């Protein structure tokens, strides 16, 4: 989705991916390298954040907190996962914290269209209704179910990647997806006919 799939693999000369090289340089104090990482992943993280928290304003806060936390935690990044997976994991946790704080304050706002854009770029009534219903359906899932649905259906992550991001066993990913999809099929049955 972010067009960065090629950056995940070592090249034929055995050199690490671009984002990993940037992360290593940033870890040694190269702030410009971290800015380059921001440019590479900002859109991806923003889209993921919107899908998790339901509005663009909160999504921006979550992405800021994610990247600030990632910068401070560079020393703890052990390269056991890809940079993308590492950032995704941080963001999912930040989004969960953000939602929890908002709920406690009673201030959580879900944008009327859940922050979704029209795939066609034109806002027809039926498109708008679909986006609202999709956003409402996803937003009504439990946090555990919403996370796996978003990472699988909207970000196209594999089960192993989702397991790494959420720090849960692969089998748990499968079972949560199974139940989340059951729930969504009920909520969105009018669109599945």
């Amino acid at each position, binding site marked *: 989705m972010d067009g960065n799939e090629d950056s995940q693999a070592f090249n034929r000369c055995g050199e690490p991916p671009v984002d990993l090289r940037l992360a290593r340089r940033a870890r040694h104090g190269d702030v410009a390298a971290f800015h380059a990482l921001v440019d590479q992943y900002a859109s991806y993280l923003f889209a993921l954040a919107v899908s998790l928290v339901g509005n663009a304003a909160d999504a*921006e806060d979550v992405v800021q907190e994610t990247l600030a936390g990632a910068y401070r935690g560079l020393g703890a990044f052990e390269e056991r996962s890809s940079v993308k997976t590492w950032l995704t994991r941080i963001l999912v946790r930040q989004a969960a914290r953000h939602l929890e704080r908002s709920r406690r304050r009673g201030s959580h706002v879900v944008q009327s269209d859940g922050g979704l854009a*029209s795939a066609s770029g034109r806002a027809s009534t039926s498109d708008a209704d*679909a986006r609202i219903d999709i956003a409402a359906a996803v937003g009504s899932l439990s946090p555990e179910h919403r996370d796996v649905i978003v990472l699988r259906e909207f970000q196209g992550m594999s089960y192993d990647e989702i397991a790494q991001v959420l720090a849960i066993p692969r089998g748990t990913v499968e079972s949560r*997806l199974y139940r989340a999809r059951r729930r969504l099929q009920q909520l969105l049955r009018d669109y599945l006919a």
Partner: protein
Amino acid sequence: MNECDHASLVGAYHDGELPPASAVELEAHIQRCPECAAELVRLCSLSRVLGSASWPQMPPEALGRLHRKVDLVARDGIRKLAEALAGVAASIVVACSVALAVLPGTAGPAQASARWETVAVSQQQAEASAASTEEQIALWIVQELPGNGTHE
């Protein structure tokens, strides 16, 4: 609701997550099982509906704010490091000052004390030896007195 024993595998098959041999086996099963076939159709339809909504791009002004946030965090990190180093340096200075105050190089009280004692003891020894000399002289005088028969 799919009650088939293979129902839980249909999702993994749909997602391309089954090992090749298991995928082939499930494909053959789906051909024979209307419930699993219907489950697969529902999953494909759900993915299509969810995939019909794209997600917004981050606005440029938001990206600018993000970069400024990173700069703030980086500067904050450097400031904290400088404060920590200053604290360490101050601790070293204090430790050195304390060490200089107690180390020898000036005649320490302990050494002065030892020297005083030595002098005192040697003086006592001198006095003691002087006393014995006087005694000796006294003895000689006594011994040399007439009637002691030791002197002519």
